[in-house]
């Protein structure tokens, strides 16, 4: 063992190569190659008889959703609306919880809370979505309880039901970075702020909020991008009555045998996320990475 470490000590470059080769091969070989081939395919044309596209280079797929059919603009805007609502709701839900878990709760309580937050991630997405259906469907737990109170609401296969489901399934991805961000706020800064006479609300706005902002933005990147690409929630909870980017891509890949168009349309969420990350960078979200 000592001889092995001595061997590597003398050959730093070898150690580095061995260390980085697997993730690099993964990143370039699997991740970038698949993205690249997706992009290349978006300039081809589907063959109605075969799953293999015809390689005649053209921009028709892009024209289809950029200029020809306005329905795709509606789909993109609807998806953006869902992603924004999900993110805002999740911030609103996660903020007090993360604050409580890190600043108020006992260490024991804190651990319990974090375990409870992560438990849903251990079950399959499908199971979680169908359990949401049990609550949100017409005649489900929620509508049934509201009906007992004399409120008649129908949520089954509706957009509010989808928004609730999105907010529920992606919530842990907001809570965890927020908890990490709150943890990093030094208690001494808050004490200093109080010592200097700042009230609770002022301390919150000028000390805590700026310091946890990177965590909020990191969480929002998760909730926003996960909603942007989801095609299962809109199918199970929404009954596929409200098309999102994910479901349109899915139906072109799986049903229409039109992989080139699906590939072209899949560049839209990529572009949106690129813009989102640029804005996040401007806001300084990556400075503390």
């Amino acid at each position: 063992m000592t001889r092995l470490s001595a061997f590597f000590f003398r050959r730093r470059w070898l150690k580095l190569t061995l260390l980085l080769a697997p993730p690099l091969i993964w990143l370039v070989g699997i991740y970038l190659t698949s993205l690249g081939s997706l992009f290349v395919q978006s300039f081809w044309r589907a063959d109605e008889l075969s799953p293999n596209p015809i390689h005649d280079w053209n921009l028709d797929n892009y024209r289809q959703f950029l200029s020809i059919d306005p329905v795709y603009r509606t789909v993109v805007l609807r998806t953006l609306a869902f992603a924004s609502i999900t993110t805002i709701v999740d911030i609103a839900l996660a903020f007090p919880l993360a604050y409580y878990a890190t600043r108020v709760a006992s260490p024991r309580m804190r651990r319990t809370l974090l375990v409870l937050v992560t438990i849903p991630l251990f079950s399959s997405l499908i199971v979680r979505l169908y359990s949401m259906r049990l609550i949100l469907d017409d005649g489900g737990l929620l509508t049934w309880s509201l009906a007992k109170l004399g409120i008649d609401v129908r949520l089954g296969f509706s957009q509010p039901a989808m928004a609730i489901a999105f907010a529920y399934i992606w919530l842990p991805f907001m809570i965890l970075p927020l908890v990490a961000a709150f943890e990093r706020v030094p208690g001494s800064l808050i004490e200093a702020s109080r010592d200097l006479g700042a009230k609770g609300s002022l301390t919150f706005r000028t000390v805590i909020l700026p310091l946890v902002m990177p965590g909020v933005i990191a969480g929002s990147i998760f909730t926003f991008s996960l909603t942007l690409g989801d095609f299962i929630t809109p199918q199970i909870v929404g009954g596929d009555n409200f098309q999102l980017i994910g479901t349109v891509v899915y139906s072109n890949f799986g049903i229409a045998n039109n992989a080139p168009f699906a590939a072209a349309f899949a560049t839209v969420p990529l572009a949106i996320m690129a813009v989102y990350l640029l804005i996040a960078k401007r806001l300084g979200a990556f400075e503390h990475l």
Partner: protein
Amino acid sequence: MRKLIAVITLMTAAALAATTVASARSTARAAGGTLKVVAWEGYTEKAWVTPFEKQSGCKVQAKYAGSSDEMYNLMKKNAGYDLVSASGDASNRLIASGLVQPLDPSTIPGWSRLTPQLVKGPNHYVGGKYYGVPWQWGPNVLLWNTQKYKGTTDSWSALYDPANKGKITIPNNPIQIADAALYLSKTQPSLGIKDPYELNKKQLDAAVALLKKQRPLIKAYWGFATDEVKIFQTGGATLGAAWPLAVAQLKAAGVPVSQSLPKEGATGWSDVWMLAKSPKNEACAQAWLAYSSKASVQAQVAKYNTYTPASLDSCKALGTSLCTQLHANGNVAYLNKISFWKTPLSNCGNGKTDCIPYSQWVAAWTSIKG
């Protein structure tokens, strides 16, 4: 290295021997070996596969496909599958790509008792040759709640009538465009729609326009039959297009529903077993094709899935009430009103090539749903 070569040689020899044995046996009735099939879930259950395995000596190895495209891809990859239970939105592509071969009906014992409309179905009867053994089918019927809906029940016009706003549910499937086209072929003869699956630009546009007008009337589209049941039970829908499966489930749940085949006719699906172009185990494949044509087998499958069997003799095994409910009695007038699913291709099949292929149907469907 030498050892490895020896092993490979041995294995090749064994494989060769096995092939020789298999081909020598292919003439015999008891075939033996493994039969690899691509099937829909629910088509290769133990209840009817085990008796087949005992009788033929063939071990059935089924691969379930999630979609017609997956079925097509599995056959295309030439992964050694012998048979595929293809639906109309894959069968014509399989034929056109030469991935399946025509069958000899004389080797299939139950052939003469299979529903003639399915035997001559355009989903597999191409160029005067039969490419499939009809297996299970189902009509797309008009379904309504007898207590809550009192309007028209003998015409699809009910689904396009603004008076029924917020009461309607229809399948979330691009093939619904054919339902609209079928309705237009009767109500607007000037469009010249002969076949609801062969639509040129003008005809497709008319069907799409009709469905876009229908969009605001829709309570909810349904993707899974269980969702449709839900929408009918508690979701406020009282009228819609449905499969007999949903009708049976709703009746079982105590919802007062009735079904009809409207005067304009209806669309329907038909699944057939197709034989790969170069099957690995042709003897076993032939044995399965023969077995699958049996009325008793088809009735079992139909009962299990609430589909309709293709064999006209299956009513004995189904019982009168289920037979009537599933329309398995081979009523000619009923069957002649059904246009069975087939893949829309740009080659219309009547010498013209200006038809709109399926991928554009899907794009149109996206556009309709908005």
